[in-house]
């Protein structure tokens, strides 16, 4: 399937899911939209992680930091938009006040740009490291960024910041409740992330990233510009994670470092692709839908703390039984058995 055909099909599926969500809302209220938003957010995060971790083989433990950068970009710009005269008057940036407050799509775009730039910088500093050393460096970066935010008073520091969610959003003549708007935005973002991931996977870049994952010195010897590709993957992965985090303040209404940099984001971003399968765009989607839904069910039927327990148990189980994830299991089941071949004498 060509890339643009895939995009159209994905948009049709997204439209159908959104219509279904609006229909069941009359029966179940807004809960399904709130739960669905979280699952879709994990689809974006897992897909973003997989671009670097799955396609390229570089494990990033700092996903929560990129997510938080997106969230805090929104917090900073929201605060600026709430009182532009206070922060921008008598400065060279006074004219920017006329553009504020920014719309949610603009905030998502800016969150992605800031996170992408941080991803590029992190990549530049750390991509000469490999394996566990790279993973530790990403973890260290998350700690450094969280410390900066905790000490940044403008965005609330350790106290956190309140964002008052509007009641409704207007899209042309249509008025949507804000949670519907957030759900729709995250749905479109998930489609975009999947389209980006699939396009990369089937492109020259995807082949280069797979070569790096399989054997980096051999890839370099085959002419693959490994550092450049890794930087592109890090920036793209970071940008998508930041985009996933940008609407977060409007979703929760109160952002503090502990929840924006929360462990569940870092763990789920890794676990979902691992459980779904890391070598294809469908893996993170399947992993996020399965694991995200299970976590939401556990939260309402048992307790929210059980969600990470589910992740841990499933992750250990899949690493042992099916290291290529659910997609790998399906591929193995569909593939005919092969015999070891010998070259003709």
């Amino acid at each position, binding site marked *: 399937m060509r890339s643009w055909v895939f995009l159209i099909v994905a948009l049709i599926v997204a439209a159908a899911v959104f219509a279904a969500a609006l229909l069941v809302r009359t029966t179940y209220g807004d809960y399904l939209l709130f739960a669905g938003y979280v699952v879709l957010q994990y689809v974006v995060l897992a897909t973003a992680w997989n671009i670097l971790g799955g396609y390229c083989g570089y494990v990033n433990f700092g996903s929560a930091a990129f997510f938080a950068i997106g969230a805090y970009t929104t917090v900073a710009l929201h605060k600026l938009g709430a009182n532009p005269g206070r922060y921008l008057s008598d400065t060279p940036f006074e004219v920017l006040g006329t553009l504020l407050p920014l719309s949610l799509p603009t905030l998502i775009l800016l969150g992605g740009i800031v996170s992408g730039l941080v991803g590029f910088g992190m990549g530049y500093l750390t991509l000469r490291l490999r394996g566990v050393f790279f993973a530790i460096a990403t973890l260290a970066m998350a700690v450094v960024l969280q410390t900066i935010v905790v000490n940044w008073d403008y965005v609330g520091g350790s106290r956190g910041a309140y964002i008052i969610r509007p009641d409704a959003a207007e899209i042309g003549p249509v008025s949507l409740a804000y949670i519907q708007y957030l759900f729709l935005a995250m749905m479109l973002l998930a489609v975009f992330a999947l389209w980006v991931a699939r396009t990369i996977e089937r492109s*020259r870049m995807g*082949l*280069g990233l*797979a*070569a790096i*994952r*399989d*054997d980096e*010195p*051999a*890839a*370099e*010897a*085959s*002419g*693959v*510009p*490994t*550092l450049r590709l890794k930087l592109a993957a890090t920036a793209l992965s970071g940008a998508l994670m930041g985009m996933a985090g940008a609407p977060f303040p409007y979703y929760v209404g109160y952002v503090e470092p502990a929840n924006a940099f929360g462990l569940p984001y870092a763990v789920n971003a890794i676990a979902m692709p691992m459980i779904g399968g890391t*070598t294809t765009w469908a893996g993170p989607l399947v992993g996020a839908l399965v694991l995200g839904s299970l976590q939401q069910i556990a939260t309402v039927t048992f307790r929210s703390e059980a969600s990470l327990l589910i992740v841990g148990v499933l992750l250990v189980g899949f690493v042992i039984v099916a290291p290529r994830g659910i997609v790998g299991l399906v591929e193995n089941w569909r593939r005919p058995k*092969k015999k*070891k*071949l*010998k*070259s*003709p004498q």
Partner: protein
Amino acid sequence: MNTASAPILQVKGLSKRFGGFVALDDIDLDVGQGERLGLIGPNGSGKSTLVNCICGTLQNETGTVHFNGHALNGAPAHKRTHLGLARSFQLPRPFASMTVADNIRVPLLYTVRQRTGLVHSHIDLGRRCVELLALVGLEHLAERSPRDLSQVDMRKLELARAVASEPKLLIADEAMAGLSHSEVEDIVQLLLRLNKDEGITVILIEHIMRAVMSFSQRLAVLVSGRKIADGKPDEVVNNPQVVSAYLGQ
């Protein structure tokens, strides 16, 4: 350099240390265009380190490497490949998650296209893949995983992948290690075809003296990071220094 042609590779005063250990000490080596050079030496003599320094996997501390008129010092390995310098690895390093054909597509997409600026269609790429696999006798295994290959086929895939980048110079690092007598002969014939038919200059690093002697026009010998002999194969193997240091007689 015992060749009439202009050197395609010039190594001058190259040294490499690992901590206090001197792996290469002031190595000079010229390789002529179209030449077949055998590089021999006991284990630990610095052959692979020299290859790694020439190909950019390791950076040398002193000395210079010139390839086809380009100074290579500091250039990353992929840029050296784009210039026409290819290598195979001592232990085969296939891209294990890909098919055999995709292993060949990587250098085709990243080197040939980079160098020529041509955007190859899928058909062109596919045709070239088949040609390259046919050259090494692996065309019937194109859609298989490298994990399914025998040792000799893995070696051939390694060479086909190196040749896919359309190199001017190919460095074959122990491409025959662990192979049977007939398989060694297969690889020697393949390297000879690459040299004669494709015009590729070849440096063969090998312990199998029968293969080295039948293949090489010239022989260089490394011992303990120093080049102790360089000349015609018959003269070099009778050189008393080589005999005592390398052949142990």
